């Protein structure tokens, strides 16, 4: 396909020839198929104008319309008494009690970050913030989930440090703390890094704003940055197509971020909400003005007149299609009662935010766009959203699954525990991510009471007893080996992480990163993943309130591992006065294992991957009963102040989990084990915790009450890590373990 779309002024002005045999036909260059073109002709009853084609191309893009995924996403459980806004709006919203709401969303910026890592990641942050403050919420925290190819490749180092700089540069300057996230490396992301970002905001119930245009007569006010030619066709071209060596030529499709503009825009919008000056708001992210006019009009069941000549622009001579498709960042569309327009413009002036009156909500259903005195588009507004194609893509279980599952690693003998542990601690996907998160402001707003470097994060709401817990989790390798089990396991892991802060899991958002949906194997992975997430959510009694689908994560025909990432939100009310942390284990405390005695197995584990380079076998099925009991137990332990330190058993298994506690707390530990496999198995329904020996009886009573099992497997003390199997003892010096863990990233990047 042609990619050199954006900069040439004439590229979008040629007629939309219906000549379907011509590769240069405008609709094809815009990423529309011939069938989609025919459908547009049917809707309009005539040949579309270039501006109209431009609008359909972005709104019907995979990125905006979810045309390949929508029929599967219906499977998600989406209801619970505390859901205020479910999927379909800019962000999901849940009720935290006492009039407080939380709005949150997760998004991907994978392809832009590959083409231009700094700006790609930066504008990903900007975009997700707008999704959240569009709902009336003040964004209070960000989480980044980033995945790259191995760091021994200079290109991957460039992408990694560029993305981290972009998140740091934008997030810090826009003034929203990045309090956690995920970092993983695998060969499958070399040609296609994943850059996901989640944002959470809080608001009072009366401030909730929806993306509706409201009544006819309302005025559309465009706020924020001037519209330019940057980011034209990002949704349709960048986000909705696969990659090859030519992708660098797509750089003009990546937007350029300006966190200062966004900061002013946030404050201006929050003042508009506080003073009740707007009826609805829609952000201009992917699909730009097309989306910001069509979606609110469609939601309101109204039409709209849009005047492109009124749009404040960065450069002269922009064509109507360019104006409609531009993804210039830091813009919002507000819908305002005519009597309040002057006040809205005054608020914008105060915050030094540019504003123009660009349209009016009309009776009927037509979206009419004028430019230079001519009507350049006149289409049913809802046809851009509701009539977008839905594809029931062919699904086929990959032929390779049987081979993958039978390809179990044959462990001939027990590994040397000490060297194995040191090797795992030095793995960049397991090691300390401090090099990353110390570049992010993670403390702003004084809400962060459990910050980065922990399984879950806890943010208080000042002036209340409530705190919001969040954990974001993914595991591409597990999902590759079994998408359904892998997806369920990451949901359980996230729930447990949230529970270990003392909070009850409430809802998730998900970001589904997949390969090319035109391949039946990819759609099978997708369907299985949706099923796995749904099963786990049902077992936990929590809904999916929003999310994002990112397809076409393939480069040169090679798909990434199916990589769903979930962001799970929980609530602690009241929050613990001394929240558990990894650095709160002390000499003399017991080390407990919570959960079934049997580990899940080593298929898909970091152990097999890091030590033997093996990816095969079928990961164990998650145990829903044990997982929900683990959640109950963790919440109970924290509420009863029976443990100051809890930790999940994820990447690297129990041995790594013990080491992480010991390193953070600066105290050694001794562990009894019977089977070395239990040291390296990763189990979403098991966790470790430290506790004062005086609490033994109460811990056992609590475990019995919630149907969980607990076992004392050792104690803290000394200056080394000791692993005992009968009389056999392996010893790892704690300082050496700490150095391996802390230096893994810096030494690879220096």
């Amino acid at each position, binding site marked *: 396909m042609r990619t050199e779309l954006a900069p040439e002024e004439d590229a979008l002005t040629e007629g939309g020839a219906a000549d379907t045999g011509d590769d240069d036909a405008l609709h094809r260059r815009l990423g529309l198929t011939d069938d989609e073109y025919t459908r547009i002709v049917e809707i309009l009853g005539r040949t579309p104008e270039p501006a109209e084609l431009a609008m359909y191309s972005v709104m019907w893009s995979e990125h905006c319309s979810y045309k390949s995924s929508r029929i599967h996403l219906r499977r998600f459980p989406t209801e619970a008494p505390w859901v205020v806004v479910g999927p379909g709006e800019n962000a999901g919203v849940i009720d935290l009690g006492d009039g407080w709401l939380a709005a949150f969303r997760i998004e991907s910026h994978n392809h832009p970050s590959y083409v231009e890592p700094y700006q790609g990641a930066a504008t990903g942050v900007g975009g997700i913030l707008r999704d959240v403050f569009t709902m009336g919420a003040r964004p209070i925290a960000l989480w980044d989930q980033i995945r790259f190819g191995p760091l021994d490749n200079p290109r991957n180092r460039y992408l990694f440090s560029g993305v981290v700089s972009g998140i*740091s540069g934008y997030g*810090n*300057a826009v*003034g929203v703390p990045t309090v956690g996230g995920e970092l993983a490396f695998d060969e499958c992301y070399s040609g296609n890094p994943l850059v996901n970002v989640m944002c959470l905001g809080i608001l009072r119930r009366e401030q909730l704003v929806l993306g509706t245009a409201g009544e006819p007569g309302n005025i559309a006010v465009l706020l924020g940055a001037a519209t330019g030619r940057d980011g034209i066709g990002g949704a349709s071209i960048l986000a909705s197509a696969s990659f090859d060596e030519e992708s660098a030529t797509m750089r003009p499709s990546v937007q350029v971020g*300006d*966190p*200062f503009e966004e*900061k*002013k825009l946030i*404050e201006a919008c929050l003042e508009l909400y506080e003073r009740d000056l707007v009826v609805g708001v829609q952000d201009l992210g992917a699909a730009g003005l097309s989306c910001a006019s069509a979606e609110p009009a469609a939601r309101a069941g109204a039409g709209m007149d849009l005047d492109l000549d009124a749009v404040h622009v960065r450069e002269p001579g922009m064509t109507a299609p360019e104006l409609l498709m531009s993804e210039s960042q830091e813009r919002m569309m507000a819908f305002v009662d005519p009597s309040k327009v002057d006040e809205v413009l005054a608020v914008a002036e*105060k*915050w*030094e935010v540019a504003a123009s009156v660009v349209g009016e909500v009309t009776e009927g259903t037509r979206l009419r766009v004028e430019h230079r005195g001519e009507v350049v588009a006149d289409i049913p507004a809802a046809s851009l959203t509701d009539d977008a194609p839905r594809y029931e893509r062919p699904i086929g279980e990959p032929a390779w699954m049987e081979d993958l599952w039978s390809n179990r690693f044959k462990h001939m003998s027990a590994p040397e525990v000490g060297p194995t542990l040191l090797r795992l601690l030095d793995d960049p996907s397991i090691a300390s991510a*401090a090099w990353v*998160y*110390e*570049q*992010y*402001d*993670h*403390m*702003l*707003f*004084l809400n*962060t*009471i459990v910050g980065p470097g922990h399984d879950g994060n806890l943010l*208080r709401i*000042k002036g209340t007893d409530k705190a919001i817990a969040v954990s974001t989790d993914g595991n591409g390798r597990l999902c590759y080996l079994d998408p359904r089990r892998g997806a369920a396991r990451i949901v359980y892991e996230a729930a447990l992480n949230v529970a270990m802060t003392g909070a009850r899991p409430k809802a998730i958002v998900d970001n589904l990163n997949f390969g090319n949906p035109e391949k039946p194997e990819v759609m099978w992975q997708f369907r299985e993943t949706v099923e796995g997430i749904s099963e786990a959510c049902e077992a936990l009694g929590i809904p999916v309130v929003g999310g994002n689908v990112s397809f076409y994560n393939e480069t040169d025909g090679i798909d990434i591992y199916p990589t769903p990432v979930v962001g799970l939100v929980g609530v602690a009310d009241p929050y613990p*006065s*001394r*929240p558990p942390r990894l650095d709160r284990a002390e000499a003399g405390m017991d080390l407990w294992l919570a959960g079934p005695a049997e580990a899940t197995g080593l298929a898909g584990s970091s152990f097999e991957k890091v030590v033997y380079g093996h990816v095969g076998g079928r990961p164990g099925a998650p145990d829903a009963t044990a997982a929900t009991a683990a959640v109950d137990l963790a919440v109970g332990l924290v509420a009863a102040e029976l443990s100051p330190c809890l930790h999940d058993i994820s990447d690297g298994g129990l041995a790594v989990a013990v080491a992480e506690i010991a390193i953070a707390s600066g105290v050694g530990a001794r562990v009894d084990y019977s089977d070395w496999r239990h040291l390296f198995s990763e189990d979403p329904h098991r966790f470790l915790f430290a506790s004062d020996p005086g609490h033994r009886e109460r811990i056992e009573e609590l475990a019995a009450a919630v149907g969980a099992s607990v076992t004392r497997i050792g104690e803290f003390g000394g200056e080394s890590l000791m692993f005992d199997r009968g009389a056999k003892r392996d010893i790892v010096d704690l300082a050496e373990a700490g150095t391996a863990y802390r230096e893994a990233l810096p030494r690879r990047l220096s």
Partner: protein
Amino acid sequence: MSRIAVVVFPGSNCELDAQWALRGLGAEAELVWHRETDLSGFDGVVLPGGFAHGDYLRAGAIARFSPVMSAVTEMAETGRPVVGICNGFQILCEAGLLPGALIANRDLRFICRPVEVEVIDTDTVLTATVEPGTVVTLPLSSYEGQLTDPTGTARVVARYVEDVNGSQDRAAAIANEAGNVVGIMPHPERSSEEILGSADGRVLLESLVAATEKIPA
């Protein structure tokens, strides 16, 4: 009760935190927009952290021209407490109320983590109630946090225990000669409660509040 102005520039982001921490100490802390030109109703002023005017050109370089800065200068000249935290420190240097300048950290990376700081000069509005030699743990959160002062006149109020960013004399905070204008790079307001990991910053903010209470009405 003393009234402290917390100035909000476009791009400031620590104003609510500074206000929260000062109010927690019983002070009356009010947000003041940067276009305000009269601070006569206030006993002291805090320039909070953030990215005033986007920190474009150079951190603080545009903020020094904000209308409020002439009133801030007047406060400084009349001996009232003027404290700049992080970006506020950068603005005070750019405005010439403190010597030197803040340049990018030695390793050219943003640094956000708690650091140990030793208070060495207790004759300023931010440290008057602190014992000399007290070591406090305060969160650092800055990219342009390295003090450079070719004039060598900077009066160092507090030093990093370890050299974290290349700052001259390991300076974490400096003052003017009178001790009423203080710039500090780490954030005392972020360590004002135990639940945040440290309450070490309280003692500094208490000093500031006490200093504003001494101002004759």
